[in-house]
């Protein structure tokens, strides 16, 4: 549309802005307002509640562990997918995207069926060896890592494909070791893609709800994460706390997304 009429252009702009404001912008801003309706009392009240503090600490710990696991896995698998050939590569590449389209509830159910305490595949064996997965932090980490698994791979693979292997081969032919090549050549060229992937993974991990609800057992002060606490407090009519914790979660995830959006075009050459 080389010359879209200004009228069409303006109409579409208004439609889009109205749609986004009604669907996302306005509702999100209302949560901020609900949180700060009485100034900072709701927020400080929530944070001084030991159960809330515990759930926030647990959420952060779980998210960091899941992000670390997915970062190591994501970088390794991306390198293998882009730079080597092996049988079943296409299948593996397709399967890695699967977690994005699996219901969190199905993820939770799957982990319970495989590692749960009763009647599962590996649960009894794990219990004999003193490892609790379901209704324990390990299961929460597992569920969280599952749902955010493909995010690093999806960011890193396109960049690796684009940069090719010329520089790597030059370094190798000059005698650099694999590790040196990775730290000095590959990592610097994928660093922004990796940052995006890690930030997205972190945001997704902090907010996982459905899978964690099933796997954790939602034990207050033991396996209750922040998202589970929001649901419980809302149902218990402790709306002030629910809104305060929801605001904290929303603030972190919006900060993550804003960071990614503003970093991305500035380093567009990486893409």
């Amino acid at each position, binding site marked *: 549309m080389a*010359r879209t009429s200004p009228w069409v252009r303006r109409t579409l702009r208004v439609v889009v802005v109205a749609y986004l404001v009604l669907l996302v912008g306005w509702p999100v801003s209302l949560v901020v307002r609900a949180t700060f309706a009485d100034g900072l009392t709701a927020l400080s009240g929530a944070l001084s509640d030991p159960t809330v503090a515990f759930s926030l600490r647990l959420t952060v710990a779980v998210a960091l562990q899941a992000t670390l696991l997915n970062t190591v896995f994501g970088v390794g698998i991306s390198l293998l997918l882009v730079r080597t050939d092996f049988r079943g590569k296409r299948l593996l590449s397709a399967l890695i995207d699967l977690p994005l389209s699996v*219901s969190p509830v199905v993820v939770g159910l799957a982990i319970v069926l495989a590692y749960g305490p009763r009647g599962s595949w590996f649960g009894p064996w794990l219990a004999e060896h003193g490892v609790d997965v379901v209704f324990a932090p390990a299961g929460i980490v597992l569920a969280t890592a599952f749902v955010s698994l493909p995010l690093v791979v999806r960011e890193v693979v396109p960049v690796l494909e684009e940069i090719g292997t010329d520089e790597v081969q030059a370094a190798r032919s000059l005698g650099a070791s694999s590790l040196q090549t990775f730290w000095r050549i590959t990592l610097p060229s994928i660093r922004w893609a990796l940052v995006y992937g890690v930030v997205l993974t972190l945001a997704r991990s902090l907010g996982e709800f459905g899978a964690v609800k099933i796997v954790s057992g939602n034990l207050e002060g033991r396996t209750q994460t922040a*998202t589970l606490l929001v649901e419980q407090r809302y149902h218990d009519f402790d709306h002030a706390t629910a809104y305060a914790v929801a605001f904290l979660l929303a603030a972190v995830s919006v900060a993550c997304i804003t960071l990614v959006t503003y970093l991305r075009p500035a380093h567009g050459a990486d893409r």
Partner: protein
Amino acid sequence: MTSTLAPPTAPSSAEGAAGTRRPRPGRARRARGPRALTPASRVGLGVGVLWFSILALVPLVAVVVETSQGGWAAFAHALTTPQTAAAIRLTVLNALGVTLLNAVMGTVIAWVLVRDSFPGRRILEVVIDIPFALPTIVAGLVLLTLYGPSSPLGVNVANTRWSVTLALAFVTLPFVVRTVQPVLAELDRDVEEAAASLGARPFTVLRRIVLPALVPAIAAGASLSFARGISEYGSLVLLSGNLPMRTEVASVRILAYLENGDQTSAAAVATLLLAVSLVALVTLDLLQRTVVNRGTH
């Protein structure tokens, strides 16, 4: 792929892990020098696949096996129970409707973001990604504040079927926008200019030139949005009220079965959901390829 970029004389390029750099010679299958697996990358691949299996594949297989242990009769019984059937119908219909909405609105949003410039466009970019990053339970709470019982707009959809549509529209917003946007940005505008200078009306240019180029991207975004739609749970918990036969979605049924100790029925519904999203993704992948092929001939 980058295979053409790797000259055959170069040493191993798989430096994912430290180790020997000599490519393994004499492998029967297509070991093309630098792209063959070194022993070190073989170990890396093994560890990666093992972790992926422990994390995702084994549990998902456990769901399917649990379903098959109940046999066909139990599977059919679980899915045809009126409450479950109603939940599945509600979920699929809403996911389809929202996918259609996203195909249209997502394309329009992408067009405005790429072709239009106005102050605040960058803010819209952030707004579009919010549903992707916002925890689903917070998304539900967020929608409840504007469209719930104490709505400042006077619109209360809480505990109605519209709440399901609204929640799905919220969480699936970014998919079509984010797949269409890069394609639209790369689109060669000379072709459009040429068509316009030859007398094509703007609508004709849109229908004959712009849309055909965007169809694969729209289809890809739509398939992701549908798969996400049928599997949504978190944003509905507070908003829809989970009323049996009315606002209860498939994921909620799975949870209800699980809480009642009926793992087999839970697995049956889960298997159906997995199958539907797999079929959706594969169908649209095929559709996408035929469209691309047609476009190049």
